[in-house]
């Protein structure tokens, strides 16, 4: 699913956010990405979601080289990823239903299909009864669940989450993480960046640790094992 070979990212001004990162997340695998602030977690996620391009090395998503993708193909590749943000990035001028339906609208689904899939996604995060509510009236945990519903409504192959529990209390955080585990169990690949180490320990999933832009710990299978 995701393959990084000696990926480095150097920003203008010389700051090196990633240094020779190697990793591989197979189809249907789930992993946590940890590290201090500024260790490169966000940069790694940005490379996968085509927001940044690697300076050196090879970053592949489903064997597509993310460095050489033309800008016209970027939207179509992003449709295979569901992204969950720390601040959930909901659109406050429209209802919960319309927020969750957005990826389907973008991809041109039929009206009835949009309604069906949107309700299914809301049901999965336990917010079906709130479909007509405006996001501003929801609690922080509920808003994050709406963000998750929006990320999964179009059934992406890969879920990326950047500090999804950063603003939530431990109980809500556990609920949110459990939703990710549920998606992993139905075959979706999941990569969650988080520094909530105690929660990560609890969930018993592979962990990747970044430190100063270098991968210092990797529970996933090394690339060589796939190449043989």
């Amino acid at each position, binding site marked *: 699913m995701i393959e990084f070979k000696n990926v480095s990212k150097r920003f203008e001004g010389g700051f090196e956010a990633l240094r020779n990162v190697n990793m591989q997340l197979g189809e249907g695998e789930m992993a946590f990405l940890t590290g201090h602030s500024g260790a490169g977690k966000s940069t790694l996620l940005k490379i996968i979601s085509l927001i940044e391009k690697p300076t050196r090395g090879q970053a592949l998503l489903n064997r597509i080289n993310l460095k050489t993708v033309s800008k016209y*193909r970027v939207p*179509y590749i992003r449709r295979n990823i569901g992204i969950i943000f720390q601040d959930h*990035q909901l659109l406050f001028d429209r209802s919960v239903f319309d927020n969750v339906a957005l990826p389907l609208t*973008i*991809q041109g*689904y039929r009206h009835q299909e949009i309604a069906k899939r949107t309700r299914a996604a809301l049901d999965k995060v336990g917010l079906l009864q709130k479909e007509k509510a405006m996001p501003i009236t929801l609690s922080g945990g509920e808003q994050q669940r709406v963000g998750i519903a929006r990320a999964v409504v179009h059934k992406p192959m890969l879920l990326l989450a950047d500090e999804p529990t950063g603003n939530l209390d431990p109980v809500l955080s556990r609920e949110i993480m459990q939703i990710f585990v549920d998606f992993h169990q139905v075959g979706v690949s999941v990569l969650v960046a988080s520094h909530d180490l105690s929660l990560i320990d609890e969930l018993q999933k592979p962990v990747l640790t970044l430190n100063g832009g270098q991968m210092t710990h990797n529970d996933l299978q090394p690339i060589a094992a796939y190449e043989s």
Partner: protein
Amino acid sequence: MVMATSKKRRGIPGKANKLVAYFLHHLQSLVFSLGKIYKAPTTTIMTVAVIGITLSLPSGFYLFLKNIEAMSGDLSSSTQITLYLDLKTSEKSARKLSKALASQETVQKTEFISRDSALQAFRQSSGFGKSIDTLSSNPLPHTIIVIPKSDSDRFEIKNLLNSLQSLPEVKIAKLDTEWLERLFTILEIAKRAVGIITLLFAFAVLLIIGNTIRLDIQNRYQEIIVTKLIGATNAFIRRPFLYGGLWYGLFGGIISWLIVELGYLAISGPLGRLNMLYQAELDIVTFSFQDFIILISSSTLLGLTGSWIAVAKHLNQIEPT
């Protein structure tokens, strides 16, 4: 596992045919942008009012010119030729000439003014009565006013003028068209001025709409970034803004039409009197249906163009970071 490009997804149940989806989104954007206008009436009304007022100036001028032209067209049909006869011509032969001319095919009618009645009229209207009394003899000649057939064109009138000029009794034959030609020239200048004004104001409307859409894009910066991350194409994001500009242009055009119509209602009284003073029985000309369509469609086009420029310049710069 296969990267799902739009092509490969075509067969997925629930997903509309690509073309259908395309038109569906156009329709959605059209309605959505209208909904945004409805939700923010104050801003919209202000923008639309500015566009309406801006467009009402050139269209008002245009209508004004149209009226003047209609009036002058009517006046030009009342062309007359004035014949100043030789002073030696007797009143009797002058009257005879007038009658003879009236029976000519190209002439509608003639009017004879004897030198005495001319002097009488001059004495009354000019205010020089006393100074005229000091004259030893009447300096004015007999005059015949020849009105050509109403459907004669310029060429026929010119021919008539030449034939009248060659008559032995006629000293001077004068066609009263100089002032008309002047009027036409002034109208020509005014037309060009309206053209320049129209261009300038059209440009102003482009700037107004461009700026409004630019602010709209800035206000929805976050939304644009989120939709891009969800996989929206630039075309998808562009559409609501383009339709927004289209609505601004359309409503602005309608408002400018209303302004001009109301303005003409307000000045129709004096304009009607002016018509009567020129003895022209004319209705005031307002926008024809064709004018209305041209006004509305060009303002809509301006709206679309203005937003297109703004969108092309600003939207592509917004990328998630």
